């Protein structure tokens, strides 16, 4: 990691004083981190080893060791939710990347109008996901929604979006795509703008076509950054909750039940906090492994 220490004042007295200040600067944040992430996670681990119903206290509270973990890994609802989450991540992030990249290429110039258009395109990702959810709930409505209206006007037929198992999945993915494609636009535009000029000049001198320039100059330069950005977005997509909570609550059937929703329901609807914590830990390991694999394959690029 790039640490640029001060070169002036390196006498022992100054060094000690400086170290003290640096320590005091660092400590509060680390303490907050311990309190808000390390401690709760360990607490959850402890709770996950018990059977504990928070509301119905007459249901016995007992130590079950790894019992909750065994049970949750065999729970068909939990496993379905994992599959749904995985599908959701792949579909949304994939679409967001492709569309976002396309748009980024279109709007990465320096003209005045583009400088105004770009911020506007970014609005959806700044909105509270809850608002995106209620908005799209109205838009996807089978009878009174705008999407079916547009479809019918363009010659198609109305689709029972949130009412059918397959279509609900599509609706949920597309709502997320609307919200988060701007993330890729923002980041990829910045990335494109940060690329060095020389390779392009060389390509032009060599008489490369636009496609060849893209394939042999732009894309290789972008790859490391793209990899990390896609991985980051995928990790964020794994946390999806607000959107599903408002759009479908996991239905119809289990078609849009994602793991975050499953854990929430177990813990705060059925009050089985032990079971929910076990599910949460399994999910945590699942996501971290997934992220590690993603980041590892694509190699360095992170300025650590």
């Amino acid at each position, binding site marked *: *990691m790039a*640490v*640029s*220490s*001060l070169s*002036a004042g390196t006498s022992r007295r100054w060094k000690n*004083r*400086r170290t003290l200040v640096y320590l005091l*600067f*660092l400590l*509060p*944040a*680390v303490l*907050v981190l311990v*309190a*808000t992430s390390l401690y*709760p*996670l360990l607490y*959850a681990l402890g709770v996950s080893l018990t059977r504990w119903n928070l509301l119905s206290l007459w249901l016995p509270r007992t130590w079950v060791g790894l019992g909750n973990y065994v049970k949750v890994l065999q729970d068909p609802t939990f496993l379905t939710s994992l599959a749904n989450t995985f599908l959701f991540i792949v579909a949304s992030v994939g679409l967001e990347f492709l569309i976002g990249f*396309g*748009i980024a290429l*279109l709007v990465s110039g320096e003209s005045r109008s583009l400088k105004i258009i770009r*911020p506007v395109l*970014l*609005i959806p990702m*700044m*909105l*509270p996901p*809850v*608002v995106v*959810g*209620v*908005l799209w709930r*109205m*838009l996807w409505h089978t009878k*009174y*929604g705008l999407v079916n209206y547009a479809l*019918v006007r363009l010659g198609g037929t109305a689709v029972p979006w949130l009412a059918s198992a397959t279509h609900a999945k599509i609706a949920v993915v597309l709502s997320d795509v609307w919200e988060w494609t701007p993330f890729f636009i*923002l*980041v990829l535009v910045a*990335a494109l703008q940060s690329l060095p000029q020389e390779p392009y000049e060389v390509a032009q001198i060599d008489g490369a076509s636009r496609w060849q320039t893209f394939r042999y100059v732009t894309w290789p330069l972008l790859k490391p950054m793209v990899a990390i*950005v896609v991985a*980051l977005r995928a*990790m964020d997509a*794994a*946390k999806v909750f*607000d959107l599903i909570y*408002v759009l479908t609550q996991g239905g119809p059937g289990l078609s849009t039940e994602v*793991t*975050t929703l499953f*854990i*929430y329901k177990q*813990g705060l609807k059925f009050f089985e906090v032990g079971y929910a914590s076990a599910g*949460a830990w399994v*999910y*945590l390991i699942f996501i971290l492994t997934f*992220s590690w694999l993603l980041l590892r394959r694509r190699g360095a690029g*992170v*300025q*650590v």
Partner: protein
Amino acid sequence: MRRFLNVGRAFLIGLALLWVLVPLAWLFVTSIKMPNELFQDPPVLIPSAVTFEHYRTLLSSPSFRQPAVNSLIIASVATITSTVLGAMAAYSLARWRLPWRLNGVLAGWFLLTRMYPAISTAIPYFLLMKTFGLLDTRWALIITYTGFNLSFVVWQMLGYYQELPIDLENAAFVDGAGTLQTFLRITMPLTLPGLASTAVFAFIMSWNEFLFAVILTSVGTKTLPVSIAGFITDKSLAWAEMSAFSMLTILPVIVFALATQRYLVRGMTMGAVKG
């Protein structure tokens, strides 16, 4: 050929703009529609009569003002604490060479907190807040959001501090300034734009958050997103009122976001891309 490509490009950009703006326009139009035009098949695109009734009612009603005040206080305080603590920590990591490559480890730990799913800490948060008697207090969310925002703030500011030429600070030091003074007098002013935009983003994230807000708050302290979700009521689809509520909620966010989005790339991508 060039002209054709330009027209094509303009067309596609226009489509993208429509894709973003049409749903937002729909939200606004819904918020001003009269009740009899809300549930129509085919939907009414241009209402024959409009009413700003819902906005008037909401702005004077505690059902909006109470959560708005809560959101404002919680987001503001959480932003201040996370920005201050995060900037300080980032500065320390950028200037202080720790043994055992701890710099990398700590920075990595901040990264980790962004990566894991928040739901993993939701249940223990609930249980812990209950134990400490902090449920349904604003402090519960302030502490939570400070924790959330730290990783973004640290990574954002880390990049800025690493890139700042060290000579300026050295010069100040030689002139007799202490470490703290150097930080306050030299470093801060130079990185202020970065800090400001980081603070804005932290504010937006706190303003928008839902999961922990719905778990940790109740009657007195619920925030705007919690109120909005509450609109999926059991009797009538209060679309117009819900849309007005949503418009009021997103207005500050849009304003802030438009002002600072350029600067946020660095933190959002953990330094992979320089904004």
